[in-house]
C-alpha cells in the first residue's frame, strides 16, 4: 500500500487511476491537473507521497519540467511517468523519473510498476 499523487490534465484519468489503485490497495493523497498546481500542492504537502504519477502534455509546464522541479524540492521522490508520448521516454528518464509507462497501458502494468518502485 502506497500513498500516491496523480498529476494529469484529464479528469477521467484521475478517476481511472483512483479505481485501479484501489484494486492494488493504494491511496491517492493528492490530485493536480497541471504542472504549476502539482508543484504548489507538492510544496504544501506535510507528508510527501511515496509515488507521483506524472503525465507529460499538460497546459503550462510539461511533465518533464514538473518532474525536475519536484525533484529539486525533494530528490528522493519516486516519479512514474505515464504519457501517450512514447517518444519522450528517454527525456523523461533523464529528467529523473524512475520509470516510464506508455499510454494506453494495462492495469497490471501500472500496478506491477508501482510494486517495483516501492520494492526498490
Amino acid at each position, binding site marked *: 500500500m502506497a500513498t500516491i499523487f496523480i498529476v494529469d490534465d*484529464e479528469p*477521467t*484519468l484521475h478517476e*481511472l487511476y483512483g*479505481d*485501479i489503485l484501489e*484494486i492494488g490497495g493504494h491511496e491517492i493523497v493528492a490530485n493536480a491537473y497541471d504542472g504549476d498546481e502539482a508543484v504548489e500542492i507538492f510544496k504544501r504537502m506535510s507528508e510527501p507521497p511515496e509515488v507521483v504519477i506524472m503525465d507529460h*502534455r499538460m497546459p503550462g509546464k510539461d511533465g518533464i519540467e514538473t518532474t525536475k522541479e519536484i525533484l529539486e524540492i525533494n530528490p528522493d521522490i519516486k516519479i512514474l511517468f505515464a504519457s*501517450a*508520448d*512514447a*517518444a519522450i521516454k528517454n527525456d523523461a528518464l533523464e529528467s529523473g523519473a524512475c520509470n516510464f509507462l506508455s*499510454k*494506453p*497501458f*494495462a*492495469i*497490471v502494468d501500472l500496478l506491477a510498476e508501482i510494486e517495483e518502485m516501492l520494492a526498490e
Partner: protein
Amino acid sequence: MVEFDMENARILIVEDEAVVAENLEMTLTDTGYEVVGRAASADDAVNAAIELKPDLILMDIVLIGHKNGIDASREIKEKIDIPTIFLTAYSDLDLVDRAKSTEPYAYIIKPFQERQLFASIEMTLYKSRMARKLKESEAKFRDLTELLPQTVFETDEKGNLTFANRAGFDYFGYTQDDFDRGLTALQMMSPEDRDRAEENIGRVMKGEQLDGVEYTAQRKDGSTFPCIIYTTPIIRENKPVGMRGVIADITKRKAAEKRIEEEYRRAEFHIDLMGHDINNMNQVTIGYLDMLLQAPDFPDKFRKGVETALNHVKKSADIIYNVKMLSMIRSGETKLRKIDIYPAYRSALKAVESSPREIRINSNITEGRYFISGNAFLFDAFLNLLNNAVKFDQHEIVEIDVDISSSDDNWRIEFKDRGRGISDDYKKIIFNRMERAGESAQGSGLGLTIVKYIVESYGGSISVEDRVKGDRTQGSNFIVLLPKGG
C-alpha cells in the same frame, strides 16, 4: 594537271587584262572550278559579286578606271561577305599592305605557278567555310543564350564579369553602362554569401566544375532572390582563365518547398494531437474494460464480448503507434547506431509467444554475432513480421522458421510461414499500403508497410516469395536484407 580534291567552287575573276583573265579562266575551268563571271573594273566587280554571289573572288589590284582592286574589295565587303584573293605584281606590294584593312584572305604575287594558285584558292575556301561555320555556331549559342530565361555569364580570372545575357541584365537590374564600367561576380551575391561565393570561385579557378550551388543573389536595387548557380572554368591552353555559368532563379521552387514543409508540419501536428488525445481516451476504455474482466463476479457470458472490445481498443492504440512511427521514420528524425539484431528479435519473439496460440519458432539468430546500423524500431519490424506469420497460419500449431545468413554486405533474414500464401499480383503491392491510400486495403494493416519503411531506413530491403517454390499454398517467405555494420 595537278589533282585537287575540291568542290566545284564558283569563282569570280576581276582582271583588267583580257588575255590574263582568259588564261586564268581556262586554268581554273580545267581544274574543275566554275568561273561564274569576269569583271575588268571595280564597279563591274562590285555588281558581279552582288549579283552572282561567288564562293571566291580572284581580284587583280590594278583595274580599269580610277578605282583599284582594293577599293572594289572594300565596297564588296560592305555588302556581302565573299573571300577574296588578291593577285598583285611585286611592285604593288605596298598597296597590299593597305589591303589588310579589308581583311584579305590571301594574296599571290604575279607571276605565279598554277600549283600556288590552287593551294591558295583551296586554303582560302577552307578558311572561309570554317569561318562561316564558326559564325553559325556562335550565332546559335548567342541566340540560345539570349533566349534562355536564366542568367548566363562569363568572368575573367579575377571574377570580373565579361559577359552577361539579356536575362542577366533583366534579373539583376544592371544596365549596359553599369556593365561597361565594370561589375564583379561577387557583387551579384548578397553580402552574407560573398565569403562562400569567393571560396567557390577559387575552386572553379583551380579547374573544378561546380554543379548547383545555392546562394542568395542580390540585385542592383539591393533586393534579393534565392538562386542556384552552375559554374565551369573557362580553360585556355590548359589553364583556367575565367569561369562561365548559369544562374537560375529558384524563388518559386523555394516557395513550393516551404509550402510542402508547412503542410507536412501541419499534418504531423494533427497526427500528433489526434494520436495523443485518442490514446488518452483509449487509456480510459482499456482501463475500465480490463477492470471489468478482472472483477471476480464478472459474468462469463459477457467475457468474450468485452475481451473483443478490449482487443480492438488496443489495436486502435497500435495503429496510432504505427502511424507515429512511420511519420518519425519518414521525417528522418530517427538516428542510426550499431545494434545487435538479437535483442530486438528476442523481444519480438517474447511478445509473439505471449499469444494464446501454440507457436513454434525455429531460428538460428544468436547474440553478439549479427550487427547492423539501426535503432529501436528493429523490434517493431520483427514483431510485425512474426505477427503477420502467426495471423495467416490456420494450423493448430503455428510454425515459423527465422533463418539468418550472410549475403555479401548484407544479413539476409528469412521469415518462413505456413500461412495461406500470397498471390503473385498481391506480392507486388503488399508492402505499399501508403501508395494504395484511398483503395480499400481490406484486411491488410500497416504492418508490412512499416516493416518496409524501417528496413529501408537502414538501407535494407524486403521482398516476398513462396516458401516452397511454385506452390503458394505452402506459405510465404519474407526476405529481409540489412546492411552489415555499425
